[in-house]
């Protein structure tokens, strides 16, 4: 991912509506994001685009997601 795309993504992770999501995404960006391949990184960008409550419900296991591209990233977020 080029610098600009990464920085845009970073802003959209470190400035959320819910503190829970701020922390979860910032942490993942710092610790796990590098290890993803291009397609997985794209899936993370899509997740980061979701509304805060929906995303938090996924990360906290209060909701599940079927999408085979997104589900593995949600699992990583749950563990991080």
């Amino acid at each position, binding site marked *: 991912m080029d610098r600009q795309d990464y920085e845009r993504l970073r802003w959209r992770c470190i400035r959320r509506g819910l503190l829970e999501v701020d922390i979860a995404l910032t942490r993942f960006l710092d610790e796990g994001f590098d290890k993803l391949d291009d397609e997985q990184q794209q899936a993370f960008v899509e997740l980061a685009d979701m509304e805060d409550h929906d995303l938090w419900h996924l990360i906290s*296991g*209060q909701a599940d997601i079927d999408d085979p591209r997104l589900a593995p990233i949600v699992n990583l977020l749950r563990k991080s």
Partner: protein
Amino acid sequence: MGCFDSLEVVSVSIPVLKFDAVIVGAGGAGLRSAIQLSEAGLKTAVLSKVFPTRSHTVAAQGGVAASLGNSEEDHWTWHMYDTVKGSDWLGDQDAIEFMCKKANEVVVELEHYGMPFDRTDNGKIYQRPFGGHMSNFGEKPVRRSCAAADRTGHAMLHAMYQRNVKANTQFFVEWMALDLIRDDEGHVLGVTAMEMETGQIVIFHARATIFATGGAGRIYYSSTNAFINTGDGLGMAARAGIPLEDMEFWQFHPTGVAGAGVLITEGVRGEGGILRNSNKERFMERYAPNAKDLASRDVVSRAMATEIKEGRGCGVNKDYVLLDITHLDPATIMKRLPGIHEIGIQFAGVDCLKEPLPVVPTCHYQMGGIPTHYSGRVVMQQNGDHNAVVPGFYAGGECACASVHGANRLGTNSLLDLLVFGKSAGDSAVEDLKAGRAHRDLPKDVSDKTMARISALDNRKGGANVNETRLAMQRTMQDHAGVFRFSDMLKQGVEKILEVEKAARNLEIKDKSMAWNTARTEALEMENLIEVAKATMISAEARKESRGAHVRDDAPDTAEFPNGRNDAEWHKHTLFSPVDNSITYKPVNMQPLTVETVALKTRSY
């Protein structure tokens, strides 16, 4: 870049966008103001650091207060009484009457905008009880809070955003306002702002400028506020010479996860959760023998702070206490307290079914802010007038101090604040513009201050690191101006925060790129945070009584001064002047608009 149909250029490189009104902030307050302006046919720009529905208002779950009386008898005068009492008599009674009386109107309007409030069987807005809201002047709890499931703030933002789209409000998303533009005569003419995508600085030249930038809870180490709450509006106002009101008053929530701040609902103690110190002692039994762990928020928070100060905190730094639910049935926890188990695992690394959760009193809400009249106009002391209007400048929501929350906010009153004062700020701007307020000439040095800040950041070598400076500020605020305050700690705190200020004025960033430079944005936010932190520390040190959320060890509860409150000397608003770090005071407005004064009395529940 946004819309350049009214482009004009003042200096070689800085474009000017002309609007009737520019609103900084697209949370509840900003969106509510924008509706008034756009629907009045005025050309209105709304700037936001994030997409509007990602504003921090989205976190509000509890609801919005209005004495609709749908579930049982209620009256705005009861709501007014509760709010005055909640504020520990520091709230201005004209503003409080205005807010409580307008509550029904703004809630019903919201319903018409499409807000999906919970409903009763007969189709009315369902109302639930919330702490501090009572019937018949403090007699017994009343159902006054209107909510939309557990997504009240979210639903509010969506309803108002849609309404604005219909009304042609122009949104500038991922734009950060940097400085307020004020001319020699003190008029406000707009803001300078940065488009994050390009790093371009632009002047928004407006006839009316409205601030709705939210709170600054990130000045504390432990905060329930999202990272975005960096007090930008307060920083910009302060840099433009506008004083900040009642900044010593911050509401703390007793149970934020230590280190993370994430809020653990009161429901956990409701279900039987117990607070313990490092000796595993259930210490609340000593502080509140009857209510114990279910005592009111401020009592529990202060007890926790005392345990920590006296060395009975837990962990390596002995800086938190434990919230223990290991004795509860795991099935009950999972069913009645959804999300708590995950919060423990994600943010404390603790499985709360097996181990207690580390918690600390955590900063939650900012009562002070930019001083405003209830019409939403910003006011300041000038030539003997305590409330002289700053022409062209308006504010609403958590960044403003009307003052309705005084020394302590009642839950669900802040969503009401942003609706009522967001709307009145919008209405006042419309009124002033219709009365002929024109675009005034931009001063020659209009963007010098902003450009100097940016270029200092881009060129400085050997300066302070942003993250380290932020952390130093947050630690200082938490240790020296926390939920329970001590004279010596406050005095040291003033010295320390002035030291941190030196670092904050000397920040260095490594990334010098123009486009999407998040390091620069965070540095610019830090320059705002420090203004708020300094105002808070100095105002707190100066107020020698206890009142509402400001509780000092050396102003204890006595017969002469119940709860440590000293009305003879301290029944007044603090005004912190950023120009020379000095403090002045102004009287509390005890004269409501139409009803009788709620006379001073000891606050007890």
